[in-house]
């Protein structure tokens, strides 16, 4: 850099300024430390966020709230309650019965991870945890269907109850698939949408099958 060798600061230009870093705008979190608030407020805030997302799933319209502030509390609660409700089925031997608790857990979480990886590999722009969040929350209609099925089975296990259960499960399966597609479809490249929607369809179909084939003792 031979050309710059003769640049020097002449001594009659004073060098002055401040070294302190100006404090940025106060964000609400910094002023209001969540350490000091009562525990009830902390829990209620998270519960309200989870509840708001449940409502978004039941009335799916294109909003980005579900995508922006993802959390995995809702999916965990739904998965555990669904797995618990699928217990207590009848079987002659352990091998022939319905899915065990661990099997339901693995099917839901592993299935959601695989679908997320699939959509990312195909060029989707959604992030990993956002997609897990959406897929987990959209299990809510199927959990409601499981609850209804168990109540119907308390009344009897004949053909009528089977038809009622079939209709409920099919309706909730359609609702789940449509809800998750409404949230996830926009982030995919347009000529690959079907490639991304099909695994979601398969995922909820498997969960619906587990719910429909539940037979009590």
């Amino acid at each position, binding site marked *: 850099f031979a050309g710059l060798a003769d640049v020097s600061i002449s001594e009659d230009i004073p060098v002055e300024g401040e070294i302190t870093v100006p404090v940025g705008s106060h964000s609400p979190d910094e002023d209001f430390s969540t350490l000091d608030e009562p525990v009830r407020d902390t829990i209620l805030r998270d519960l309200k966020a989870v509840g708001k997302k449940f409502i978004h799933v039941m009335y799916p319209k294109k909003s980005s709230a579900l995508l922006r502030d993802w959390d995995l509390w809702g999916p965990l609660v739904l998965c555990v309650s669904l797995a618990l409700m699928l217990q207590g089925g009848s079987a002659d031997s352990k091998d022939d*019965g*319905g*899915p065990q608790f661990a*099997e339901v857990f693995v099917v839901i979480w592993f299935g959601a991870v695989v679908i997320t990886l*699939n959509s990312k590999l195909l060029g989707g722009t959604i992030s990993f945890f956002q997609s897990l969040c959406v897929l987990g929350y959209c299990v809510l209609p199927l959990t409601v269907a499981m609850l209804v099925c168990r109540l119907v089975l308390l009344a009897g296990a004949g053909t009528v109850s089977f038809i009622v259960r079939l209709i409920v499960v099919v309706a909730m399966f359609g609702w789940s698939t449509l809800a998750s597609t409404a949230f996830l479809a926009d982030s995919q490249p347009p000529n*690959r949408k079907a490639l991304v929607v099909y695994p979601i369809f398969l995922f909820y179909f498997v969960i619906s099958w587990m719910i429909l084939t539940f037979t009590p003792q």
Partner: protein
Amino acid sequence: LVCLVMYLFAEFDDAANLLAANPDATTISIDEPVEIPKNQHSRLQESGREEDDELLGTDDSDKTELLAGQKKSAPFWTFEYYQTFFDVDTYQVLDRIKGSVFPVPGKNFVRLYIRSNPDLYGPFWICATLVFTIAVSGNLSNFFIHLGKPTYHYVPQFRKVSIAATTIYAYAWLVPLALWGFLMWRNSKVMNIVSYSFLEIVCVYGYSLFIYIPTAILWIIPQKVVRWVLVMFSLCLSGSVLVMTFWPAVRDDNRRIAVATVVTIVLLHALLSVGCLAYFFDAPELDFPAPIIPAHNGTTVVTRSQ
């Protein structure tokens, strides 16, 4: 040869003289990075077959392999490397499925549809669908067969899903691996014109399993004749896709080894379908009403066998 050597020495002399005259001149040396594309070995085996042979589909040239090496250049620990295996659009996947169900005689599935863009989407999701289809159909067919028997109590048999998954994914990955290894070994002994990469073999096997999805659904029908007709039909279709793909790769070899390879491929395929039928679907029991036996006093007795 001596003239060539003298000429080369003269060239070096010139260069040295030039450099001595102007020591401050910057000399630029061009380093050519020697990049070996993935399928470099296929270039060595390229014969001089014409382009129109490829159009006929009967002979295969490796010219399409030349372009394959330039695609996958990301290192294998990055996400982009695996994205290159999912670089397919919806219509391409549907085309490949169509090609596996309606095999055109003489056309090679790999050359016609895959065209050096093997994808992992098709094999993975076709296998997943097949696993659940077999498990669900088997459960349904057992339910219909045993319906009405007083001692029968319906069970979902969820454990069979994991068995089905293990079997089908093992078939779809281990058999291509063994076949690829075998073809590579034969390639080192005999110069074969056609060679497939591992992913292309996985792709062919994955797409050839698609025909079993509607077959498994139709296996719910509890008639033995119907089931075996379906086995034969689906075996013919998917087996012919496999045979037409792999026959050009082994036909230059020893005739016995080529025939043995193709027969083994078809046999393994048949074993998979027959095994799935036997394990997941209970045999429909035959229920013949016995003939009417006229009794001596005129009343007829009808016996029904169980």
